[in-house]
């Protein structure tokens, strides 16, 4: 009986604010509803057909994938390198570990506004800097040019989330025993060889878990993009999340937004499942052996 007393408040909150909205999203997705009156205009899977046929949505899925893959390709090597660096005994190590984590603590919106100022066309710091090293910034600014905008967004996201990767990798390195390093060094291995043959392979499980978290985050990516570009220019940085917010709040196409949410969930779920089966399973196997 007491079990119910303890668990009910949490479950009620989750039912009300997580489960009910998700069920509602699925319901919206089969109606052509603009926010007025009752849900009456049942259209079956038409919204799904429309969303999947929309070039903007399909490119948004592509942008999400660029962010998923790009985040891992940039943050994994950089994160490992910086974690290795910070794992060496050096002065100011604690301070460095704190500093590297600062961007992660800032709100995405706040970070985005600072970068917006840095990236201002012509008057911004970045344009002045690139001009200095002989790179002519584009006239519309880096974020205003469709060819560059997504890559700039990716770089800003890397700046924001690298600290988390470094922190988790450092935690993983704590688990690598000192004796292994010393034994390797006695055998005449250099620092590089020791890291490459021992530390990095032993970091495998941490890297795989981090990559999973990074993937899930990249699929939902919204705040940073909304402030930096609103998905523009010309939808060049639109993601699934900016697409569905745009449809839902600006155009009141709740059916389309619902269908886009369901597709977003299915993609996220399929990726999570595939990753679990193909990659993370190795870790659980290793543990039980």
């Amino acid at each position: 009986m007491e079990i119910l007393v303890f668990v009910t408040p949490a479950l009620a909150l989750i039912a009300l604010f997580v489960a009910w909205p998700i069920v509602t999203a699925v319901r919206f997705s089969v109606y052509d509803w603009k926010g007025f009156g009752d849900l009456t205009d049942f259209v079956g899977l038409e919204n799904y057909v429309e969303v999947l046929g929309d070039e903007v949505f399909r490119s948004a899925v592509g942008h999400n994938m660029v962010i998923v893959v790009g985040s891992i390709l940039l943050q994994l090597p950089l994160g490992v390198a910086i974690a290795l660096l910070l794992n060496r005994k050096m002065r100011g190590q604690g301070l460095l570990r704190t500093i590297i984590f600062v961007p992660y603590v800032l709100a995405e919106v706040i970070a985005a506004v600072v970068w917006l100022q840095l990236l201002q066309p012509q008057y911004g710091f970045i344009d002045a800097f690139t001009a200095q090293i002989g790179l002519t910034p584009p006239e519309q600014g880096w974020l205003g040019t469709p060819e560059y905008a997504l890559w700039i967004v990716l770089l800003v996201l890397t700046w924001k989330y690298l600290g988390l990767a470094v922190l988790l990798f450092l935690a993983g390195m704590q688990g690598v025993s000192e004796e292994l390093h010393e034994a390797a060094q006695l055998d005449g291995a250099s620092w590089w060889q020791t890291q490459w043959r021992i530390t990095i392979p032993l970091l495998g499980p941490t890297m795989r878990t981090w990559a999973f978290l990074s993937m899930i985050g990249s699929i939902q990516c919204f705040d940073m993009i909304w402030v930096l570009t609103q998905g523009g220019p010309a939808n060049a940085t639109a993601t699934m999340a900016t697409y569905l917010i745009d449809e839902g709040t600006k155009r009141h196409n709740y059916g389309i937004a619902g269908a886009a949410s369901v597709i977003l969930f299915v993609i996220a779920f399929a990726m999570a499942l595939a990753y679990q089966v193909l990659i993370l399973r190795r870790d659980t196997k290793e543990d039980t052996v």
Partner: protein
Amino acid sequence: MSVTADLTPRRRSGGNLWVYLIALIVVAITVGPVLYGALGGFRTNAQLADKPAGLPDPWVWSNYAGVLSNPSFWQYALNSTMIAIITTVVTVVFGLMAAYPLARYQFRGREALFMVFVLGLLFPAAVAIIPLFIIITRNLHMANTWWGVALPQAAFALPMTVVILRPFLMALPKELEEAALMDGASRIGVFWRVLMPLSAPGMITVGVLAFVTSWNAYLLPLLLLQDKMRTLPLGVADFSTEHSADTAGVLAFTTLAMIPALVLFLAFQRRLVSGLQGAVKG
């Protein structure tokens, strides 16, 4: 590069020059934008346009003074604080209550119940956001209120909280609880008087996580809060679009809005970090 030098294990040598050089570059890239914002707030727009990379010369205080004397800034800060406090209290109390039987009781369906919370982790917030907005506005009539934002934020924070707290509670010694029960305390009495105090470190971890997440939230407040009810992140975004010509003013506003989260992070750094690491290790 000399290979022989690397053969000797580094003790307190402090590393090579290049290690420090790389560290310095990493630090510059990491905190550069934040420092640029803070220093930019001390410059005039003319200084910023003239020399985008310069230092304040002379230092001007008017941008910061302008923000601090702006009643909207304080209103936004109050809203952010209240919403984050409500979110944190609800998340920690409800989360601990739910984690307690899941960790300490033996009953049928315990693991199934725990799975409900684990499943909650899998749903991206973006999926639910439009219906959530409509439900809160139309069905619950809580749009533009602190509770209307805090309660759903707590709901989305609860699965992670329960997942972190359950193993923590499982690791606490059983003896104290049993002794209290022998002395005739009720289960609920044990929960309040024995378990809550023992769980303080775990509660701080999940509490700080919930607070920072709520403080930094953007999407839900963006949809639900208007005008005087807006929070600091929304205020920063609005200010930056409305005063796009006043770069120095925007930088001052943004810098001041960063301070609470940074201070909280520095104060609870160890807890926050171990909480995140624990969450990843499962």
